[in-house]
């Protein structure tokens, strides 16, 4: 009886050893996989942009073999009309850049003010309809851009043609329509960022100011506002970036002569692949990198002042 008991234990031991070996093998496969995946993922994320930048400096027009370094394509962009691309001229490009800046600065200014106000309201006050407003505010973030674009296009079309029938004058889409549209989707982002900042804030600070005799107005300007300012700045930078980058909504709300840079670039790159477009794209990559650099620097500084 003792012998059979011993045998049984040995059998389970063998079984466990097999299982252990399998488990260890599995762990090795898992570990390799865990290290291989990021290599692949980062390659996937970065390769397209690196290739784009690299081939904007390529001597030949080929996009698969690098034959030598040149700045020709950059010179071309800024030297007036580019060869066969009659759609392209330096003047048009700079004009669209100017339009982009007009739109983004205006939309950012409006949505920063309105977004901050609504964030304050939602974070500090209670009133009927607050929950509904809260969920409506979140909608422009999730509704597909194309829906927002075409709904505004139909809306403006309807309002403008109605206006024409009652007053006889025709209004055309332009900066005003693009700015209105950009404010719609940037308000939500400003509100989210500022509200996060408000809820991070210690409410005792406001109570203390009031206890010391400051009225609401003074409490706001001397306590709340300085404390949430970094949030407002971060929110407006986010709004500016989103507005500057937006293509879809702008595409449906812009009129003749008010194309922004993304709309202009879309017109180019829909047609062909040329080294000049690679060069413009590279400049846009550089610009957004600089913009992020600035915003990170600002946030870094605000983190220091917070601490």
């Amino acid at each position, binding site marked *: 009886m003792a012998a059979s008991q011993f045998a049984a234990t040995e059998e389970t031991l063998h079984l466990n050893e097999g299982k252990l070996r399998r488990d260890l093998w599995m762990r090795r496969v898992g570990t390799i996989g865990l290290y291989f995946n990021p290599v692949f993922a980062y390659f996937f994320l970065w390769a397209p942009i690196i290739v784009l930048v690299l081939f904007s400096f390529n001597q030949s027009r080929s996009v698969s073999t690098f034959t030598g370094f040149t700045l020709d394509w950059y010179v071309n962009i800024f030297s007036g009309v580019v060869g066969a691309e009659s759609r392209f001229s330096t003047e048009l490009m700079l004009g669209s850049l100017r339009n982009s800046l007009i739109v983004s600065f205006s939309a950012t200014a409006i949505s920063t003010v309105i*977004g901050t106000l609504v964030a304050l309201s939602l974070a500090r*006050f209670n009133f009927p309809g607050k929950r509904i407003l809260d969920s409506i505010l979140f909608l422009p973030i999730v509704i597909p851009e194309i829906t927002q674009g075409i709904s505004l296009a139909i809306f403006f079309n309807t309002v403008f043609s109605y206006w024409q029938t009652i007053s006889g004058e025709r209004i055309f889409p332009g900066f005003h329509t693009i700015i209105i549209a950009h404010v719609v989707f940037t308000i939500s982002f400003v509100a989210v960022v500022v509200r996060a900042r408000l809820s991070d804030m210690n409410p005792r600070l406001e109570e203390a100011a009031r206890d010391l005799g400051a009225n609401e107005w003074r409490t706001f300007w001397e306590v709340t506002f300085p404390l949430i300012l970094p949030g407002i700045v971060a929110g407006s930078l986010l709004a500016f970036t989103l507005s500057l980058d937006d293509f879809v909504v702008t595409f449906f709300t812009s009129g003749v002569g008010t194309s922004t840079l993304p709309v202009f670039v879309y017109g180019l790159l829909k047609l062909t692949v040329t080294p000049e477009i690679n060069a413009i794209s590279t400049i846009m990559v550089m610009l957004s990198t600089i913009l992020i650099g600035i915003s990170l620097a600002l946030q870094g500084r605000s983190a220091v002042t917070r601490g």
Partner: protein
Amino acid sequence: MEALAERRKRLAGMLLALPAALWLLLFFLLPLAIVLIVSFLTRAPNGTGELPFTLANYERVLDVFSPVLWRSLQMAFLSTVICLLIGYPLAFFISTRKRNWVRQFCIFLVILPFWTNFLVRTYAWRVLLGDDGIANNFLLNLGLISEPIQLLNTQFAVIVGLVYGFLPFMVLPIFASVERFDFRFVDAAHDLGANDLRAFFEVIFPLTLPGVFAGCALVFIPCVGAFVTPDLLGGTSGLMIGNLIQRQFGGSGNMPLGSALSIVMMVIVMVTLLAYVRLGTRRS
């Protein structure tokens, strides 16, 4: 006195919210309501809508356009699954790095390409996947193919573009979930005899599901509504709902039909959102 202060506060809150509420009401909700109305109108000769009301647009959407509708959903679903397969291990890898700055740097490397203009990022794939692009050249040099194969203007290209465009939306919520996960649960599972595979599928994965759900919703919704990606990479074979909607505007368009298409798209988005909220609340 107390009641008066309370009323004043309520009024102040409403006043502060008023500009945003008005803006959204006028330029967001009202336009959506108009789209809903136009979607029931008849096409006027100039492409806009006119009376009488009709259901014909929806009939056409479900009849003529159901192949494209169905294909868009399939492509969006496939892109979401691929994002999950790439994004989960990546998020897991990043959030299990020991040093804080390494984690921050790895996340930064995911977000940075994402801040490049969407058009430019999509265009980059046109460069890579073209007939004389790097992808074809690479395959030719390996001897896997004898002549360039068509990669651009296919559904494959669109899915690659969608995965590329929205991968960070998958990585970030999962990263947040795994970072909050307490790895002592894994030790406990091991002590109880579970191997790594079981520990992962029975402990880690279920507890990081909120991040997975959030990531899937955040990827699936913009994929369903995609317009730029199929437009630049898909040609005619990779057409999606977004392209159909766009074609109904301008020149020889059909605004009521375009409106019906976008209402259907909105319904799909809303259903996805509701499913996400349901799953989220059930788990918590």
